[in-house]
Each structure stands twice: as C-alpha cells, then as structure tokens.
C-alpha cells in the first residue's frame, strides 16, 4: 500500500485481479468524469450555470471504490465530490448535466437539490443532502437492515475529512462497531475543508487512526492510485460481506480546484502546493501505468478522449435545450401516499 505521497508516483497493482478490459474501463470512467467536470467549470465561467462543486482530483479513489462494490447490489451513500463514483454506478453525464442546469426531468431530485446531491433507488444510491456527515449514521442504519435481514449487501458511505469532525460520524461508526455492521466508511482526505486544513480538524495524523476507538478496522490508501484504492476497498467490502464488520478507509488525495465555484482557493493555499499535487494526478499516473502494460498508446488515448468528448457534448446540448421545471413543481408533496409500500 503506497502511503508515502512524496514518492508515490507509481501505481501499486499488488494483488489486482482485474482483466485488461476492466482496467481500460476504469481509465475511461476517470477520464469521463474529469472531462464532464471540466466542462461544467467552463459553463460556470460562461455564466450558463449557477453553481458547481467539483470532483476533480478524486477520480482515482472513487472509481477504485465503485469497482470494489457489487454495483447494483450493494448500497452507496455518497457525498458531493463523488461525480466519478456516481458515474461508475450508472448515473449518466446527461443526468448530471440536467442537475447542473437545474432542468426538468433531473432524476435524482427533480432539480430541487443543488447538483451533486446523488440519489437513485434503482442504482442503490441512498439520498444525500447538504448537511455534511448526516449520511454516516444513516448508512449504518441501512447496514443494520442488511444484517438483520441476513442479505449479503454491503453499504459504502463517503465523506470528506473535515466532515469527520461532526458527531454524526462518531455516532454512526460507533453503531458499526457495536453491531459489526457490513459498512465501509470511505473518507476522502483532501486535506482541506473549504479553507480549513486538516490539522485544525483533528489532533491525530490520520482519520483512520480513529478506527480502533470504534472497534472497527482501519486502512489508509493513496487515493490518487486507482488500483491501490480498489484493492483496499475490495478488502474492506469483503470484510463487511463476510460478517467481519466495518472498515474506516482513509484515502489521501487532493482537490486541485477551488472547493466550489463560489470559492477562491488562492486565499488559503499556495500555487506551489497545488502544482506539486497536480504532478501526482490519478489519471496521469494510471495512464503511465497502462502505457507501460501495453494497454494504452497515443491513439487509444485519443480515441477515448474523443468518445468522452462526444458524450459530454451530447449531454451538455441536451441539458441546455431541456425545459426548466414548471414553478408548481415546488409543491411536490412531502408525504408519500398511503399505498406506497
């Protein structure tokens, strides 16, 4: 497991059981999320959309984690950075673009929520909200349900390192420990919560250091290494599925862009720091690795870029052309009808 970030420019593929096809698919997922995300930043600069919260920089850990799940079977409770994660679970670029433009037919919330508040019953994504960390004890509840029913589902919940300061995080993982729940809590530690650095969130060096206090397993992984992330997550998912309880996984990563389209990160960190981290970018590293394995060359890379560009173009165009929700959609009922099971 590569934890020394200064030297961790390589990909650690120890114990990887993925075939070439899947490796290329994972690369495609990462590129697709990145290009879609970049397009949305452009739309924001053009004044065409109101808000964007970006997943750039986190694609490695997210795609690795998604591929470690039994997708469509396990539950995921995701947070706003998880664009690559959501796409890997089956959300489409058009779905996301509809959210970004706040258009009718947006599938996760009918454009009631801001973009990046993932939800899909069909894809097994629990509904996420804006108050950070609320999803952690809810995910523990879903995991408790899986355990009580004796089904073999696992619940994956994600959040940022700053959000681990909330009580919800502690109370949720405490349940996971007490009841040995089939839960994997993945913290994407990008060392900032908006502007606040991680050493002002906690006095221990690693989020995962807290795992013992819950009586659950802990693991640290280089989140910019997609395969190392996959491996650690797969181990955690298997631990959960086999009844051995929860894992707190901490992925060390970085957000090379502002917190959101409303943030100016020059007010709290140096350009040198950002540039240094960009050299460890998850996509670049995976690309180098796949080239070395002979799975990618310039032509193949260009072909993937072109395929992704087309998909993003189409999603962008369709979402821009789509109608806005009728104002009366505000009055969507708050209660499910009695015959809802």
């Amino acid at each position, binding site marked *: 497991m590569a934890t020394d970030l200064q030297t961790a420019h390589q990909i650690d593929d120890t114990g990887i059981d993925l075939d070439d096809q899947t490796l290329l698919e994972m690369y495609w997922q990462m590129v697709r999320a990145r290009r879609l995300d970049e397009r949305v930043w452009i739309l924001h600069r053009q004044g065409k959309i109101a808000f964007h919260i970006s997943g750039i920089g986190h694609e490695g850990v997210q795609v690795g984690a998604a591929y470690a799940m039994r997708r469509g079977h396990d539950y995921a409770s995701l947070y706003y950075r998880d664009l690559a994660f959501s796409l890997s679970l089956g959300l489409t670029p058009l779905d996301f673009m509809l959210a970004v433009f706040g258009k009718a037919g947006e599938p996760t919330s009918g454009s009631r929520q801001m973009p990046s508040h993932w939800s899909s019953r069909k894809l097994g994504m629990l509904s996420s909200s804006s108050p950070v960390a609320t999803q952690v004890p809810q995910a523990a509840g*879903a995991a*408790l349900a899986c355990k*009580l029913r004796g089904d073999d589902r696992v619940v994956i919940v994600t959040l940022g390192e700053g959000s681990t300061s909330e009580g*919800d995080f502690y109370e949720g993982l405490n349940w996971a420990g007490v009841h040995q729940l089939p839960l994997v809590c993945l913290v994407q530690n990008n060392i900032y919560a908006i502007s606040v650095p991680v050493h002002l969130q906690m006095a221990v060096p690693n989020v995962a250091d807290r795992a013992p206090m819950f009586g659950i397993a802990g693991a640290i992984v280089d989140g910019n290494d997609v395969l190392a992330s996959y491996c650690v997550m797969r181990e955690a998912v298997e631990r959960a599925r086999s009844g051995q309880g929860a894992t707190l996984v901490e992925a060390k990563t970085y957000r090379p862009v502002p917190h959101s389209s409303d943030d100016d990160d020059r007010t709290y960190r140096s350009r040198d720091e950002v540039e240094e981290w960009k050299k460890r970018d998850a996509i670049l590293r995976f690309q180098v690795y796949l080239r070395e394995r002979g799975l990618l060359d310039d032509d193949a890379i260009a072909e993937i870029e072109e395929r992704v560009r087309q998909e993003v173009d189409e999603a962008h165009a369709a979402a821009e052309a789509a109608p806005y929700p009728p104002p009366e959609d505000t009055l969507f*009922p*708050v209660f499910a009808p009695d015959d809802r099971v």
Partner: protein
Amino acid sequence: MPEITLIEALRQAMDEEMERDERVFITGEDVGRRGGVFRATQGLYDKYGPDRVIDSPLAELSIVAIGIGAAMVGMRPICEIQFADYIFPAFNQIVNEAALIYYRTGGDWNVPMVIRAPYGGGIGGGLYHSQSVEAFFAHRPGLKIVVPSNPYDAKGLLKSAVRDPNPVMVFEPKKGYRLIKGEVPPGEYTVPIGPAAVTREGTDVTVYAYGMMHYYVLQAAEMVAQRDGISCQVVDLRTLVPLDTKTVLESFKKTGKALIVYEDNRFLGYGAEIAALLSDEAFEYMDGPIRRLTGPDRPGVPFAHTMQDFYMPNPDTIADAIRDLAAY
C-alpha cells in the same frame, strides 16, 4: 371491553405490529431487557429477541439516523427517544433528513419510520424531563405528528404510524401513561392519522386540545356544565400534522368561541396555528376573542411542585378560561 392504561395500549400496538410484520424493529435507550424506562416495550425483548428490540447506544442522533437508513432500505423501525427533552441532538436528522427525503428525491425514496417520545410535565421531572416539543417539528413540512390522549387512540394511532410510508412522530403524554385508562377492544383495529375527534358536543364554547391537556379539558368541560351550565364542544386534535382543518372549522362555527389549550410555551405554540386558521377561514363566525391557555413562556417546567403546578394548565384553570370566554 377491558380497560387498560395508555402505556399498555402502546405496548400492545408495538407487540401486534411486530407480530404482523417482521420488518418492524424497535431501538432506543433501555428498550431491551429493561423494557424502556417507562416500560413501554416491556416483554418485547423476551418475545422478539435482541435483533428486533435493540438497546441503542446513548446517542439520540444515531437512534433516529439508524431508523432513517433502515427505513429507506425496507425496514419499519420504531425509534424511541427516552424523553422528548432529549430529542434535540437528533433535530437535524429529523427536520433536515427524515422530513425531506421524499420531497428531495421527487418521491424516489421514502422513510417509513416511527419516532416515539414521552412528553409533558406534571410528573416532577423538572426542566429536562417535562418539555413539550411538538411545535418545533410541526413547523417542518414532511413529518406527521400524532399525540394520543387515551388508550384507544394511542393503540390505533401507533399502529397506523408503523404502517405509514412516512416519518411519523408520536408524542406520548407521559403523565397519562398510567393515569389515563380506557376501553380497548381485543383484536385488530387502527385509528387513521389525520382525523380529529369531537369528544364532546356543545354549543357555547369550543375547546381544542391534545394529549394530556385533552384529558383535563374533558374534566373542565364537565365541571362548567354542572356548575355553570356552559355547553362545551371539545375537539381532541389527535393528529397535529396533517391537521384536520374541517373538524376544527366546523366545531368553531357551532359556537363562535374558541379556547385552545396546550401545555407548551404560549409563543408560537401549536395553538397559534389553530387561532390563525380560525381567524382566516371563519372570521364571520367569530363571537369573541380566540383564546389560548398555555404554559408560560419559560423554557421548561420547574422541578419544585409549587412552580410545576403554576406552570401546567389544569382542570380548574381551564374551567376558569372557559367561563371567561363564555361570558364574553
């Protein structure tokens, strides 16, 4: 028909619902072996085991959040908050999460869960074992709220709450747990969430109440009938959200005078909404000021019995308020 206590009615409701539907489970502090500090879940742990009657960690936020997550994926949790006063650590999970999930997902996800909490004063519980918290939650769209005043309704409403596809909060008048007895038929029945009940027909003054205060209002109505010849129409709201506006308005139109009794603080309490509704939609029937008899605007019921008695409306103070209004 057998007479049972209000708490026994609640216990029966949970027992029957757990028997009927294996997705139902209970969690909360001391609900297991101990059967709850008020004994609402007595015997259920022995009958259904530790997987269905789960002693939670002492952490209210998680009691509710565990319920939300489990409910979303198909369970029917009943979450007990030991005292309503301790519900606030879970406030965010209730008002920002449970209440919003159906709306915020355009109906994709729903949260069929029950949150039970004993509320109210009169038991020497002091500032932090006596609070009424319904107004905080009634303000938030997305939460159904019921407050039973008698064993029959307690059992029937709790059973409906368990079967409802939405989050339902059940505030239980703890002073009435053993004090209030009533007939409950053997066998299956439910009381629907929504309809209020007219519990006394009358022509002079309409009195609205719920929970413990409704119990006192019936006593007060009898007192003024006997001593003063005043005829009260009494409405037991039973369900605070969604409010049965039809019964509220029709009962007002009979008398043109309204007294709303609630033991919560006066300011922005639940009765303020009833008053606003009446003035808005029944203005031309009004034959006097719309009055409220409530606890004072102090943040809890004090411990010493002198102050507790001062705080709580009781049959005598309610009767006085009815006489006052009848004379207007």
